[in-house]
């Protein structure tokens, strides 16, 4: 729910990346800009 709200706010942002992870450090949410930074390795 929180991730959804945050996503709506920052999803189109072109100079800020938002990533949210749970307690096991698994990704719950990342916006488009964060995705462009994701490693391919």
């Amino acid at each position, binding site marked *: 729910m929180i991730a959804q709200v945050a996503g709506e706010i920052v999803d189109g942002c072109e100079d800020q990346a938002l990533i949210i992870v749970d307690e096991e450090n*698994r990704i719950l949410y990342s916006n488009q800009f964060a995705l462009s930074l994701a490693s391919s390795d």
Partner: protein
Amino acid sequence: MGGRGRLAAEGGSDIRGLPLEDVFPWLDLKEEQIEKIEVNDNKNRILTLKGKIKKHHINGKHYTSIILTDITELTKLKAKYKQTNCIKQKYEQALESLFEGVIITDSEGKIIYVNKAQEELDNVTKDDVYNKKATEVFNLDKESSVLMQALITKKEVPERHQYYINMVGHAVNIVTYGYPLTVNGKVVGAVAICRDTTKAKELAEMVLDYYDTRSNGQIIKPSAEKAKTRDNLYTFKDLIGNNAAFKEAIRWAQVSAETDSSVLIYGLTGTGKELFAQSVHSHSNRKNGPFIGINCAALPESLLESILFGTVKGAFTGAIDRPGLFEQANGGTLFLDELNSMPLGLQAKLLRVLQDGTIRRVGGTQDISVDVRIISSLNTDPNEAVNKKVLRQDLFYRLAVVSIRIPPLKERRDDIPMLTSFFIGKHNRKLKKSVKDISPEVMQCFLNYHWPGNVRELEHVIECAMVVIGDGSYITLDHLPHYLIECYAQQQDEHDEVNQLVILDADFRKQTHHNNRKKTNYILKHKIDSTERDLIVKILSETQGNVSRTARILGISRQSLQYRLKKYNINRTNLTTVT
């Protein structure tokens, strides 16, 4: 295919659930701040990021949020700003080191920069004047301020004389000029360059006072080498030389002395133009009148104008009623030295004076008749000066009724022995010495040298040698300036090599074919160099690097040895050669 390409292509929805360290391995969640990291994005651009990491505890569950901000452009801008600031500081340092004052304003005429010289000129600090209107600071109006004129006209404002009282009440005389500053064709400010002429003005006043007090006597310009009064101006007897071209110049000068025509004397620096001018005056009908000389290159236009034509009270602030040199030379001769340095604007005024026979003081309304003969000089060829537009053609015709060319010393080498004897005699009297002559080697050196400073240079070289000679009777190469020795040694070197090659070449010619000879000559030259170098190293080793002893043993002068040490890169301290 790697994860990033795939993830990007599929909109990123499938990275949900993946471990953070697999997708963003460069993120360290132990830190709260990410100061500055560089990361490649999916288009392979290097981005600079900074960020924050926050822990959240919601409904009994733990989450972590990471916010990263792209500061790539900001970082580039910062670097650019730093670089620009560095350049700005360099320019400011350069401006601060100038002797001339510099004032820069914005487009509204508010001062945004003054350099150190300007601070000293006006006795103010930068803080006193920054952001203030130039017109207020200098108590000027829009017309008289070169900065405002540059802003209004958007053109360069030519040199002008300004007099003002600075903020601490001191009178300041400056010569100033201004330029508009433009960026992309738009005027964004103006700069004024100011030269302090307060001291020059005071000096000019002293010169005029000096002339004033001696208005009945013979006067020459104070900068002349030998202060002469009515009875000891130079005459034709002081012109030393038997060279045909030089004697022809004297003949023309003698003819011109019998007339009242304007005379133009031209010749390179140090050839004796002023001696000729004084001699013409001394033998003319004006010999009982004053002889006044002024160097046109020494003073700025506005000051030169005041000195030549005089001023009336109120012409500009501080101006007083004072006759100029034209009035003071009335009935005599005015010598305008280095006329080609006189600004063209003033040349036009001079032409009017010559045509009308009257002058008008600066700021005056009355025309004053003057009877003055003009002798002028140029340190360049007159036609060249006219072509280069440093001399008005109409003025040239007016002044060159008689024109006399003084040949440079290199064109009258045959006069060198006579001039040498004359200068030795002159400086024997002056320095109380008893020098008899110069050595044959020195004479050879004198005859070979090109003498860019002409007779004046020859005299200075002899005077210098007579100062360092001590009690000796003959000037040798050891007493000459280093530059002259080096030039001589180089010529000797070439001469020796040519001689040796010619002698040996004659033998080779008998034996070898013409085509082989050039090659042989080259080898021979190399061999001579090598032998000479080895011999010098050998003798230097024997004398433990003592240059004087080595030179004596080799039978050459110390200077000649120094030249060869340099030529062969011989280091006398460890006696190795660098090849």
